[in-house]
């Protein structure tokens, strides 16, 4: 068949293309969502944006990074940190009118522990009681999650798990009556359900035109009050043309891709506001700690000292970013304030290398040890422009301290394959990741560090501790260790900037929650022009 796969919406929305209408907010997505609108199987941020507007979670993070009840009225830890009880709201309805109950919650989280679940089980369920038996299919019911009544859910942990609330804030609840129609094994391919999500969130799903936009519609019965704007449309706009789209009034809200002053000026001239906040994605250079020349932590520290991180932020991010020194967001309440900040210092770097035995004995300008020249290949994937540009800077920084640094660029998967193959020795790989609240050590699975010994013990301690003060201490200890060991050279966290058209009111966001007050976003009639 030919023709455009466009279904013509019935709702009478804007008639013109760029005319502003007060009942619609249009949010730019940089790329097409996959259409995996299921909170436990999606894997792109673009799907996530839809999911977090259609579904709701038991708890959410507030701007101060405290957990606030949402679908749950309240939550409660037992004294031993092994039982977490949620009191659920009783007035919540799914978008199809069915009532939301405790069974939905049980069903959602148990599903991820099911033996047929097509993805890896979450860490949360692995900490629950009876996980092994349930996962092996030995039991029908998951002992770890119980629902004493329709509005109460209890999670029973085999060992205490500190990341529990973070998981609940990150994984919305599915409707049992919808998803039980499909065998769990087929969740990733249940196209029909995936593309027509039914949630409890502020917006109802209306339509997804592949590659073009996702249209959502206000849920008048939303438990925190009906949204102010009738339609929320996610329009797919390539970052390259984003600026025009915003200025041209094709979208109202868009994340901007850089902070170049000329670009910001262009927005400002058109009356577009730039809302800037801390970003939640960090960039780092992983080290192969099993690589003999990098096994010595002084060498790794030296390399970190050698990188002009401030220079990178100032030049590539135009100053709109921060450095970080351990694997946690600096705005995290538990992020220690006294970490070594490894301020740029080639002298210190050289000193440390000298201590570790690396000196230039043959006078070729490069360090050597035992007759071996210090070479360092920086692998980096294609895709993130800032990261691509940072590679030559780091190369130069390394060369400045006498390391023969080379660059090797490849597509993302190829680069990832270097990290994934435990038998492959490498020097360094530039990677990036997204911070999720209160998840520490999350990039460790391809790290060659932290699988055993002191670091593992420290991390286990973090995961097992639920008592706030003890947790703070455990986290501090772990992060200090990481800060000292430098398994990664932590580089920078770019700020997040959002261009918001002047007609849009009440747009707010926090580090982790872009849509926290989506139901308040409104559009006033065009004043500019």
């Amino acid at each position, binding site marked *: 068949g030919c023709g455009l796969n466009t279904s013509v919406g019935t709702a009478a929305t804007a008639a013109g293309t760029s005319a502003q209408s007060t009942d619609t907010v249009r949010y730019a997505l940089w790329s097409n969502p996959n259409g995996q609108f299921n909170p436990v199987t999606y894997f792109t941020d673009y799907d996530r944006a839809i999911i977090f507007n259609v579904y709701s979670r038991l708890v959410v993070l507030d701007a101060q990074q405290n957990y606030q009840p949402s679908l749950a009225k309240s939550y409660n830890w037992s004294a031993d940190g092994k039982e977490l009880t949620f009191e659920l709201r009783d007035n919540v309805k799914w978008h199809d009118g069915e009532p939301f109950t405790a069974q939905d919650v049980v069903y959602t989280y148990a599903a991820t522990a099911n033996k047929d679940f097509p993805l890896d089980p979450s860490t949360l369920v692995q900490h629950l009681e009876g996980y092994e038996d349930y996962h092996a299919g030995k039991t029908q019911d998951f002992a770890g999650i119980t629902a004493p009544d329709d509005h109460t859910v209890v999670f029973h942990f085999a060992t205490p798990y500190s990341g529990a609330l973070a998981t609940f804030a990150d994984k919305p609840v599915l409707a049992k009556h919808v998803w039980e129609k499909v065998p769990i094994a087929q969740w990733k391919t249940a196209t029909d359900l995936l593309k027509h999500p039914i949630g409890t969130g502020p917006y109802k799903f209306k339509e997804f035109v592949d590659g073009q936009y996702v249209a959502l519609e206000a849920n008048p019965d939303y438990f925190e009050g009906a949204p102010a704007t009738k339609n929320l449309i996610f329009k797919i706009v390539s970052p390259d043309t984003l600026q025009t789209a915003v200025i041209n009034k094709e979208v109202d809200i868009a994340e901007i891709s850089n902070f170049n002053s000329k670009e910001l000026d262009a927005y400002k001239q058109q009356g577009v506001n730039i809302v800037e906040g801390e970003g939640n994605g960090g960039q780092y250079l992983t080290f192969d700690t099993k690589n003999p020349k990098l096994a010595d932590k002084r060498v790794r520290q030296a390399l970190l000292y050698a990188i002009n991180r401030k220079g990178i932020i100032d030049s590539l991010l135009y100053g709109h970013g921060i450095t970080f020194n351990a694997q946690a967001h600096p705005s995290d309440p538990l992020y220690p304030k006294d970490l070594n900040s490894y301020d740029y210092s080639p002298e210190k770097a050289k000193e440390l290398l000298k201590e570790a035995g690396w000196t230039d004995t043959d006078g070729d300008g490069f360090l050597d040890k035992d007759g071996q020249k210090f070479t360092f290949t920086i692998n980096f994937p*294609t895709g993130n422009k800032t990261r691509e540009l940072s590679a030559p800077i780091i190369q130069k920084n390394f060369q400045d301290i006498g390391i023969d640094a080379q*660059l*090797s660029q490849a*597509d993302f998967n190829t680069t990832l394959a270097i990290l994934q193959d435990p038998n492959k020795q490498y020097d360094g790989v530039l990677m990036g990741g997204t911070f999720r609240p209160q998840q520490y050590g999350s990039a460790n699975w391809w790290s060659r560090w932290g699988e055993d010994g002191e670091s593992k013990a420290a991390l286990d301690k973090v995961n097992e501790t639920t008592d706030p003060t003890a947790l703070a201490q455990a986290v501090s200890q772990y992060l200090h260790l990481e800060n000292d060991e430098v398994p990664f050279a932590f580089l920078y966290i770019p700020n997040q900037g959002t261009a918001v058209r002047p007609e849009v009111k009440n747009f707010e966001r926090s580090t982790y929650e872009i849509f926290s007050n989506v139901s308040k976003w409104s559009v006033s009639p065009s004043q500019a022009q």
Partner: protein
Amino acid sequence: MHGAKDNVIQTVSDATASDTVGRTTADHATRSSHSLLRNPLFAGGLAVTLAIVAACLAAPLLTRYAPNDIDLNSLEVAPSATHWLGTDALGRDIFSRLLYGGRMSILVGLAAVALQIVIGVTLGTVAGYHKGIVDAIVMRISEIFQCFPFYPLAITIAAVFGANVWNVVLIIGVLQWPGLARLVRAEVLSLREHAFVDYSRAIGVPTWRILWNGLVRNCIPVIVVNGTLAVTTAILSEAALSFLGLGVSQPDPSWGNMLSSAQNFRVLSYEPWMWIPPGVAIALLVLAVNAMGEALQEHVRPRFGYIADIAPSHRH
């Protein structure tokens, strides 16, 4: 983007090559190069090409900046007396990168075409000479390569062998030979019917000798003409691959990756010095080489004999 398969000018010409080329090349191939130089198209193209090549080769004499010298204190500065063409996002001197990048682009162009010629001419000649089953097999293979998806192969080669300039050459060469092979085959098919091939066969001259002396040497005009066009396609393909991060990789400059690093609305609007120089350089070289190819094509064809009536306003 000018994907590698866009060189239909070459690929396609085999449709008529059999009716036309054989008849013409043999007679007109040896016209003096002297007359070629008088053709303004060729002379102009050659002059521009030589100027560009010379400037690239003489890069160290023309600029005092190294192409990879990062200067975080002068990022994206506009052209000035210190930086003639300004600097890029890492403060590297664009004029210097332009000259050094030209070496890379030209290298890619030439090497990719050389590879293409080796594969294409060998297979095309063998197919055309032996006809029948050998021909069928070679043509099927060339069809397979023509249908081959460009990006997956590009990614694979880059992934398996690492992204570097030789892989760009490999990718372009391996994917673009079918066009030339088909042309050469068509040419050989008609050449082999010439009496001089019959003669050599009749008196028992060894086959390799017939292929080389009788056929390959007579295909030279076709090869040259298409080779020049292929150089431009290769340069553009390198740019396209760099655009996708599969080409010549950082920090080494090539015109392609200089352009691709400027693929941004802001750069386009406010920092033209980042993209105009490589853009103009590519366009100029492509134009110059194509002009030469065009002139060569005219040169190996019989003189045009349109009757005066077709183009009315000629007589002065």
